[in-house]
């Protein structure tokens, strides 16, 4: 039985549609990340799951029971907010105990539960303080503690790390992952940060303009993006996308880039891809697929002469920028391999390329 099931969830405010026909089902213990640019409807979806507002249509099932008309305090969920939403007049201890108090848990049990949560999050020394006396990271822990203390069926996180500075964010990210591994609760986590999504999720659901684009494991959405939006949204630096056309004649299946005023580049289309002659295609190349130097001489390797115009060192490796097929492209190379801009040879194996239909924007094969 799935822990959470969303069936055709739609939400609109008047004529403005925020979510349309979103269906997601997740199993017990999963860590689902709702990922998308701002305004894609991911927070709206989370709030609908929480019961803070109701969807215009569609069903929400938690643990198999329909929750549409159940008020949020009876949904057996806990939520961590972007702003932490700690109660300013209460101490940390009172904050964490609040959900138990509201559910009339006896004081002795409450104390024990708060102590357990505090130990898990290493905030025992902060229990007597007020939220205003805490740093951002500490507030974050208290907010998680308040969610943790009740052992809910479902954890909801609404961009919990986006108010933290970069270093702390990475640290808390790791802690969240450890926490999930330790307690294994079903979690739905909203973020616009694809690195957070990739590192934390067991599965990622990518939303754009209120529509579900793809749902899959981090490896799936990275290696087999369902469409151009997902391909472009996941991965940093972003995927190189080259426009072109498929040419099928006799035994030869070739993709040729089209860009006005530029020499076209050809590469073989892998077998098994259903491509028609003259079909408008978009080639997707991850930056790390491209290597410096000439490739092998086989038909599966593509070599091109390019002019590198920019090098961005990132430490372990460098991002080089060059023009290919009429587009500015990026490749990730080892830090020492490229020191000066200028003409160079690059290559990539054709089987690591992805092909999208330029019209439907969907992945082929």
């Amino acid at each position, binding site marked *: 039985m799935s822990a959470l099931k969303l069936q055709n969830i739609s939400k609109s405010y008047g004529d403005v549609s925020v979510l349309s026909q979103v269906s997601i089902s997740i199993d017990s213990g999963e860590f689902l990340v709702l990922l998308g640019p701002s305004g894609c409807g991911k927070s709206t979806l989370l*709030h609908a799951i*929480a*019961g*803070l507002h109701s969807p215009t249509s569609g069903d929400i099932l938690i643990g198999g029971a329909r929750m549409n008309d159940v*008020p*949020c*305090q009876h949904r057996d*969920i*806990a*939520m961590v*907010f*972007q*702003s932490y*939403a700690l*109660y*300013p*007049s*209460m101490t940390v201890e009172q904050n964490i105990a*609040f*959900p138990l108090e*509201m*559910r009339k848990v006896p004081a002795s049990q409450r104390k024990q539960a708060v102590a357990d949560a505090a130990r898990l999050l290493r905030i025992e020394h902060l229990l007597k303080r007020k939220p205003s006396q805490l740093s951002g990271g500490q507030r974050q822990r208290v907010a998680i503690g*308040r969610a943790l203390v009740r052992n809910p069926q479902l954890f909801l996180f609404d961009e919990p790390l986006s108010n933290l500075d970069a270093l702390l964010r990475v640290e808390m990210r790791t802690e969240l992952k450890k926490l999930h591994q330790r307690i294994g609760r079903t979690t739905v986590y909203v973020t616009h940060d694809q690195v957070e999504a990739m590192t934390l999720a067991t599965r990622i659901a990518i939303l754009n303009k209120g529509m579900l684009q793809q749902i899959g494991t981090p490896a799936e959405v990275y290696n087999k993006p369902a469409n151009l939006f997902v391909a472009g949204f996941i991965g940093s630096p972003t995927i190189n996308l080259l426009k072109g056309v498929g040419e099928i004649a006799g035994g030869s299946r070739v993709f040729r880039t089209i860009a006005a005023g530029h020499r076209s580049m050809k590469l073989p289309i892998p077998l098994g891809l259903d491509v028609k002659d003259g079909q408008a295609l978009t080639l997707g190349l991850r930056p790390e697929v491209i290597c410096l130097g000439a490739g092998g001489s086989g038909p599966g390797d593509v070599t091109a002469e390019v002019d590198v115009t920019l090098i961005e060192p990132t430490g372990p490796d460098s991002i080089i920028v060059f023009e290919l097929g009429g587009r500015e492209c990026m490749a990730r190379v080892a830090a020492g391999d490229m020191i000066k801009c200028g003409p160079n040879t690059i290559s990539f194996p054709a089987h690591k390329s992805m092909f999208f239909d330029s019209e439907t924007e969907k992945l082929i094969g």
Partner: protein
Amino acid sequence: MTIDRIVLGSTIGHRFSRLLVYLTLILAAVVYIGPLLVVLLTSVKSLDEVRAGTLLQLPHAVTFAPWKAALLSQCIGVSCTGLSHQFVNSFAMVIPAVLLSTPLGAVNGYALTLWTFKGSDWVYAFLLFGVFMPLQIVLIPLAHVLGLLGLANTLPGLVLLHVIYGIPFTTLFFRNFFVTVPRDLVSAARVDGASFWQVFFRIVLPVAIPSFVVSTIWQFTNIWNDFLLASTFTDGQSAPVTVALYDMVGAATGVKTYNVDMAAVMLTALPTLLVYIFAGRYFIRGLMAGSMKG
């Protein structure tokens, strides 16, 4: 908190403009403090001294007899008991009226901002109408309603009017504070299982203390100083002190006892003055609440 001084210019032009600012401020202060000084000085002089001296002359012998007379023995019409009875009336009116209108405004403001419902904006718009409505145009309907309720010419009737008339103001105060309270706070509390009243009492109320102070000061001052409703809907023994003051000073016959009149004015104004002096800093803080971080 220490406040660092801002850097001021030191050229002739800068100094001259600063002098102008100070002169303007001093002039404004004199305009406001002058009359108060006259009232205060006159109220502690004997009647002979009032007649003999000038307005701003310091008293030769300070006497509190006029204050005593104003409070206990000055005649208002035929009863010569001073303002004491009506002074008590004013407290009997202002305390319940403030204690009822402020919490009602708090709940209204809370519901209208953090627990919004369909049409809540309209409710707020109608409530605001009460703020801008001149009382004069509803005096006759109010009289009719009070008559129907059997509360005409009574203090409870006056309390009822002040509570109802105060709700738009108190609601406005609390609403303007509550819009600065993050909605997430209420969402979090709801997810945690708190009800409407639990959220109100446990989460929202503790952070709204400055608003309570502001609302209380405002209501206390306005209700205490009210003359229109009081003079329309009460008389004689049920009147609050503002009406009694008018009767004592304005309707008296015979020798004008200026010193007693001034003492009566001071006595009438004293409660609101004290409220301002002791709670004024909360007033400023409350009006500014939420305008800045921290």
